[in-house]
């Protein structure tokens, strides 16, 4: 495993980010990670999302995954749910679009309409 000092530094960085809890609490992002999603680039979308959250210190955004939703030709699919807005499903998301969704939708509360393919969660 990694040297103890490096992990210690990482822990301190993560703790610092956790301490700065801000108003974006409660946002939820679900990435479709079935075989179709993975083949279409969902893993790269996930990496870009985590990188963006790490750099912005948005530790409290919940990130999860789901399987195939039966819309394989619109993959990668990403559902974003923020307090006060209906859930929005984005289609054909790539890392650039994902970063924009973080900045516009999660941070600023503005739905990125050009990539939104549905509103309202399956669960609702």
């Amino acid at each position, binding site marked *: 495993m990694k040297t103890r000092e490096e*992990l*210690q530094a*990482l822990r301190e960085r993560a703790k610092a980010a956790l301490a700065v809890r801000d108003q974006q609490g409660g946002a939820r992002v679900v990435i479709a*990670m079935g075989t179709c999603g993975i083949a279409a680039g969902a893993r790269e979308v996930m*990496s870009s999302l*985590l990188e963006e959250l*790490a750099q912005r210190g948005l*530790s409290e*955004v919940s990130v*999860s995954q789901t399987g195939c939703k039966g819309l394989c030709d619109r993959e990668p699919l990403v559902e974003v749910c923020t307090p006060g807005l209906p859930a929005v499903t984005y289609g054909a998301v790539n890392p650039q679009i994902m970063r924009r969704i973080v900045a516009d939708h999660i941070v600023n509360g503005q739905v990125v309409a050009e990539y939104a393919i549905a509103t309202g969660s399956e669960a609702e």
Partner: protein
Amino acid sequence: MRELSLHLLDLARNSLEAGAASIDILVREDPARDELVITVADDGRGMDEEAVRRATDAFFTSRRTRKMGLGLALWRGTCERSGGGLEITSAPGAGTTVTGRLQLTHWDRPPLGDMGGVLQALACEAPAVHLRYRHEVGARHFDFDTRELQQELQEVPVCDPTVLHWLRGWVREELAEIGSQA
């Protein structure tokens, strides 16, 4: 799938679906035997003989939402096109082990790709699952273990975005360090 690691992510997600508490991933690059072995072993609910026999059939699936299951069918195709094959051992209650063997230097073998991204996605989705990854290149190796990592991180969860972002780059560096060419 453009990378072998994407198949690996897909397989490990099958393990999560099967209720695994631990997943062991082994990637062995053996230049002397011109072989690349990729194993995913879990302690999930396992499959009976009939399910194992049909697991790589694209028109067989245990789920009820639709009639297809492509993951293992695609993985078998990739292994066979790369001069190798696929082996599945499983039994109800005894977990599942999926072993793919590929010719390391085969023209049609896709690159291994971003293993850090795979571990990142798995640790994000299932931080409580004991995920181990061992990568061997000849006599050198790299070991990854979410439980050990969690011990070092103490109160910071392994699924924290700062940790996961770091993890991806770290795995890339470590694999370069042991001379991975896959």
